[in-house]
């Protein structure tokens, strides 16, 4: 028996029918988990058959959405559905054994939904890294485009020296960090304005 794992999307509306069909097809229920997000949760339902572990992901479930229980098909799910309610605040309807919020004795309501300063810092850091990477790629693309244009312009015999210099300057600006380039442009405009006066 070979182990394989896949993640596949699932719609919230079809969850209950999906669970019933898994049951009929002889799949074993493995677990349910939730992942906290800024404006809701992702729910992951896992089933296994002949070594194939299939994780069905319902993305971006709103926090006030009603999620149908699958404990009528798989009784073992009642533990995880009560847990997701108590820790993430997800409303799950018709749980076979419903503890109505008293499964875990927690001092804080829905503790897994609290975004800790560490998590916030990690997210901001990851976002900054991603933004810097994207800006670098964008700048490189712009620079390549500008230098190609400048080279094409330079090849034209009728182009005057001033236009060539402007094109080179534009290419340099495009290669710069966008914020810095904006500052340079503003300074140049101010200088041109002053010179005109």
């Amino acid at each position: 028996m070979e182990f394989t794992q896949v993640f596949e999307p699932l719609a919230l509306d079809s969850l209950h029918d999906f669970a019933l069909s898994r049951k009929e097809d002889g799949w074993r229920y493995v677990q349910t988990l939730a992942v906290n997000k800024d404006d809701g949760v992702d729910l992951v339902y896992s089933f296994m058959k002949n070594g194939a572990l299939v994780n069905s992901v319902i993305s971006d479930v709103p926090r006030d959405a009603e999620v149908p229980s699958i404990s009528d098909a798989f009784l073992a799910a009642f533990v995880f559905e009560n847990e997701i309610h108590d820790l993430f605040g997800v409303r799950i309807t018709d749980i076979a054994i419903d503890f109505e919020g008293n499964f875990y004795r927690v001092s804080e309501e829905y503790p897994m939904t609290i975004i800790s300063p560490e998590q916030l810092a990690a997210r901001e850091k990851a976002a900054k890294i991603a933004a810097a990477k994207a800006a670098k790629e964008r700048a490189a693309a712009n620079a390549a485009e500008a230098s190609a244009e400048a080279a094409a312009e330079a090849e034209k015999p009728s182009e005057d020296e001033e236009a060539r210099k402007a094109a080179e300057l534009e290419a340099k600006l495009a290669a710069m960090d966008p914020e810095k380039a904006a500052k340079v442009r503003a300074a140049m405009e101010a200088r041109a304005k002053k010179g005109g006066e």
Partner: protein
Amino acid sequence: MGKATVIPFGPQHPVLPEPLHLDLVVQDETVIDCLPQIGFIHRGLEKLVEKRDYNQFIYVAERICGICAMGHSLGYAETVEELMGVEVPKRAEYLRVIWHELSRIHSHLLWLGLAADAFGFESLFMHCWRLRERVLDLFEKTTGGRVILSVVKVGGVVRDIDGAMLREIVAVLEGLEAEYATIVSTLLTDASIKNRTVGVGVISHEEALDLSMVGPFARASAVNYDCRMLGRGAYGDLSDFQPILDTQGDCYARIKVRCSEVLQSIAIIKELVAKIPTGDIAVDVKGSPADGSQASNVLEQPRGECYYYARGNGSKNLERMRMRTPTSQNLAGMVAALKGCDLADVNMIILTIDPCVSCTER
């Protein structure tokens, strides 16, 4: 028929080393319904993944449970390696499985001792724990720790075991095997034990499948599933692996399955020691899991399949780490096994299921 009465069982009870509460609905000494309650000591360790990077969290993972410590660190490391596409050296895979199977032996011996104590066989309890001490001594010699081993890291293991020590492990296990066979023979042929366990807390094969049960609890009802049969890591190099099964589905069958699994683990360790390759024991792991990347994993803990899930967010800290322990999965089966039993059999049924509340309340 008498009037139905609710009898609270636990959270503090002589057969329960950890807090688990059951509301038993009893009618004429027969349990007609059962409502399990956990959550007394939930620690929120999964949330801690936000404050520890993926290398540090391995030390948190193995502190989820003292008995399953090695398994949790291994399951966590394998999941993060899957998430980051890390390939572990072959020797490290062998060492991991050797330690993991030693953990299974120590867990089953611990359980057998507690079960014997509950039966009233205090000398049997002493003998089981005496044998377990030898396994703990092996842990101490090879890792420096007796319970929390801290030998697994993302990318491999932190310590090697040299040839002389590997031979010593085999020698100790061979000595243990002979004594263990005597103990098991006494246990399984004792009339009073049979009287209390045969035909008690029966779960049929169909019920076990229907309730998605895992581990020895399920295998005692002939459910042919053990994560080790998936052949991952060093398990794939075993010449043959067949899960230990029984068909009766009662307390006695569950005892038999666990007893046989100790011998199976000894055989696995001996084979792996004979086959262990030379080479590196770890690879360097750099970088962070990509934002939105996710991976899952299953591992056969002493009590059954444990499911792990990790999601990255582009930083060193994981966005989410999840462990679904075998006891959580078997709670539905426990309720089913208790329904219809005599009140006096409740503790025996719970013992043979071997719930680990510490894992469940991670």
